């Protein structure tokens, strides 16, 4: 009897260890495989140079900037919308319209990103091209718009969760004082739920940054530093996807592991930040 218990314990423990090892192993592999490049002392060049393999320059700065640009812009678009939607779901209409919207949002989380990309290519890009009559329409704007749709469900679900934790008596008290909905949002809900909102933002940023397909399909993938939102740009994720087809031994190829490492570290920092803010609230 005791024997069986111990075996089970060991099995469960080793499964957990294996999962943790997998996490670390991914980082390990990224570092290990970018070592050959790092050792040549090119790291500074890689982080700041432009990307032009023909001239022996393999800088990924443009991709880092592109990633940050596109993710931030999509966050900028989707944040107010998400805030409004979660307010709608949780406070204004917690009855059937809110429930319906919530179900819709949950359904949206299940939609494949490649579908967003596909629709982006054939619907959004032509529209952007026509409206602004500039370039091909494959631009930061198009990618950000599509990404905004992709990440809003993450934010909405997270926000409404943290709104739901705001004690109802606070709301009733404000209501009794004759506050408008807007005043409720700004004076009662946001001050009480800001850590949740912040965590949701961080997670959504990570999701936007980690997405490959939308950026790859509709941001145009140019390697020049973008100067306006109608320019095309390439993200780190898309860069990895495009270079993978190259020759195994080239430096070009090895730099994508640096991209992978940078992405890994950026998202992990996001997670740490989110956890930290949650812990602070608990305290």
């Amino acid at each position: 009897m005791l024997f069986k218990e111990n075996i089970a314990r060991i099995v469960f423990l080793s499964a957990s260890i294996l999962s943790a090892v997998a996490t670390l192993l991914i980082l390990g592999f990224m570092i290990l495989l970018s070592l050959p490049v790092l050792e040549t002392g090119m790291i500074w060049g890689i982080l700041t140079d432009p990307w032009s393999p023909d001239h022996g320059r393999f800088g990924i700065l443009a991709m880092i900037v592109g990633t940050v640009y596109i993710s931030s812009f999509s966050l900028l678009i989707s944040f107010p919308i998400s805030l409004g939607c979660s307010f709608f779901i949780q406070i204004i209409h917690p009855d059937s319209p809110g429930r319906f919207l919530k179900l819709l949002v949950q359904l949206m989380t299940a939609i494949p990103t490649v579908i967003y990309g596909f629709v982006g290519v054939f619907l959004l890009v032509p529209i952007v091209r026509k409206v602004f009559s500039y370039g091909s329409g494959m631009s930061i704007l198009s990618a950000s718009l599509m990404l905004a749709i992709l990440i809003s469900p993450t934010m909405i679900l997270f926000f409404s969760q943290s709104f739901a934790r705001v004690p109802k008596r606070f709301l009733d008290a404000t209501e009794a004082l004759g506050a408008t909905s807007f005043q409720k949002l700004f004076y009662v809900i946001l001050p009480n739920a800001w850590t949740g909102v912040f965590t949701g933002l961080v997670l959504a940023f990570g999701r936007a940054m980690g997405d490959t397909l939308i950026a790859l399909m509709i941001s145009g993938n140019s390697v020049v530093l973008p100067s306006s939102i109608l320019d095309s740009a390439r993200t780190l994720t898309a860069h990895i996807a495009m270079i993978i087809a190259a020759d195994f031994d080239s430096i070009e190829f090895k730099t994508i592991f640096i991209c992978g490492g940078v992405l890994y570290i950026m998202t992990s920092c996001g997670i740490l930040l989110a956890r930290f803010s949650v812990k602070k609230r608990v305290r």
Partner: protein
Amino acid sequence: MFSWCCALLLATGFMFIVGFLVVKGYRGINLELIFADTRLLDAFFLKRQVFGGLFPAIIGTLSLILLSIGFALPLGLASGIFLAEYASPRLKSFFSLMVDILAGIPSIVVGLFGFSITIFLHHFFSSQIFPCLLISALSLAFLILPYIIKTTQVAIESLPLQVRLTAPSLGATKLENIIFVLLPSALSDIVSGIVLAIGRCAEDTAVIMLTGVVATAGVPRSVFSNFEALPFYIYYIASEYSNSSELMKGYGAALILLLISAGLFALAHWIKLKIEQKTRFGY
């Protein structure tokens, strides 16, 4: 007012995406889309390879799902149980940090990891190893592992104290309690988590792009061969289509994938509702 606008905006965006696909794609959906000119029975019994239809892509996606769930499920369940029932607070916070990081890693980085493992194996074990179905499934398993761990852990932890104490009060050991009471009671949440994980397998493109998916391979003959998959097919069509009939197939494939995702979502939702109803007056 403001939140009404947000809600409407989001809903319209969603409707546009789905509506666009339905309007453009519904005419493309017929048996020919899936089986081309091969006879149905021949295709099912693998007598003849289907070329030009979606059949191999659908089979590829299916085998991908089966394999990666097969890898991730036992590992994820065991780790989830360990985290919920056995781990000390310290160990728990370490492991759950690892799980969170793993969940936050962009899928393309997971794909890159799978790819680098392939290179590694290719170099050190056998030059016969190339990107293939098995590698893709393993990488995808890493991608969905954190979801399964988290849902299992949360499902077990959120059981009320009385339910957890029942079996021990009758003389059950820890393992018996887990097997006979905790897992069955948490089953609804775990199952709907698994269904959502299946959805992630079905939709992910970035991982398989780096680990062995190709545009035409036919039905995979073994786990060591290349394969086709629906989401990659959609991506491929969007970037490389040459005529309108190919594009039509792309719309059809996108619509099919959308239906699959929506179906899985509905299934998960249904399981949840059904079992919630059952347990409502149980505890």
